[in-house]
């Protein structure tokens, strides 16, 4: 394969992409690491915004403290994953930071860049949690025009019980 797009974020579920990529996927010529930052934090307002409103939101946020903090966080996450992948082997890695609705951006970038495969993590949301917050990986899988690999770690444990809290996030410390 020429180009693989790996979508990452700060959640625990995202980490699975590493073991899947390093062990189960044939090394491509280039890896594109994409992080889509959520402009609105944990608010769900953003899924109700249209394209125009999103653009306005992005513009009004330009140059603000909030935006800078978001950009820095995005870079930290991307660097973490970049290091992990570059350590694994001889692949060219490019990082990309975007803001907006994660599943939309992932699918858009995959098309723009001509990626042949999208690898995304999986956050085990179930029940009400899933309905309310949604599942990025599912949306990506449905809307993408290219194959999507949903990365999970194979383990002996049963999957988490229904009602996994929304705050299932991996806080990246300064050390990264």
């Amino acid at each position: 394969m020429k180009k693989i797009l790996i979508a990452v974020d700060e959640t625990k579920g995202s980490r699975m992409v590493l073991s899947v990529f390093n062990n189960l996927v044939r090394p491509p010529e280039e890896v594109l690491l994409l992080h889509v930052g959520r402009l609105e934090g944990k608010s769900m307002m953003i899924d109700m915004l249209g394209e125009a409103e999103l653009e306005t939101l992005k513009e009004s946020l330009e140059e603000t403290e909030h935006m800078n903090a978001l950009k820095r966080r995005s870079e930290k996450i991307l660097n973490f994953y970049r290091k992990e992948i570059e350590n694994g082997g001889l692949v060219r890695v490019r990082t990309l930071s975007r803001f907006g609705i994660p599943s939309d951006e992932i699918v858009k970038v995959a098309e723009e860049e001509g990626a042949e495969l999208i690898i995304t993590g999986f956050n085990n949301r179930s029940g009400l949690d899933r309905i309310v917050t949604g599942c990025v990986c599912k949306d990506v899988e449905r809307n993408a025009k290219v194959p999507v690999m949903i990365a999970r770690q194979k383990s002996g444990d049963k999957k988490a019980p229904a009602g996994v809290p929304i705050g299932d996030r991996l806080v990246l410390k300064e050390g990264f």
Partner: protein
Amino acid sequence: MKKILIPVDETRGTKEALALFSTAVTPAEEVILLHVPRMQGGSLMIDMLSDAELETLKESMEGTAHKDVLDRKADKILGFYRAKVEERTSGAVKTMVREGIVSDVILEVAREEDVDMIIMGCSGKSGFDRLISGCATNEVERLAEVPVLVAKNDGCQKHVYGWNEVYAAQ
């Protein structure tokens, strides 16, 4: 990787899944091709049957002409894909036929065989059709304990957003 499970049927999704098997993933020691026949044809009845009723259905179909047709179809599909896979892999190829609810069977086999990955095609259903008859790929992707690679074909279009919430409620 040790074992890959590839559910196969007569749709294009399977062709795409196989293409991915050659190009995207690392070589496997064993490939399992699983065919789940549609005992009920296009009927949606099967998703409403419990295990006991499914058993009864299977028994009542034994020795019927319908079952023969299904068996022959299964053989054809598996024979065709086994040949394709054997061309592309030096590992072992195992074929399986098991009746039941598609997504449940796939997950069951994945667990029993302790596979490392599932590669499957996408059903290509959208909107109302998808809502009513469901999508095996989505169920598997949601509940599998291993990575799932979903192959796309031209039939898979963008799905109407509104159905997300209703679908997730299943």
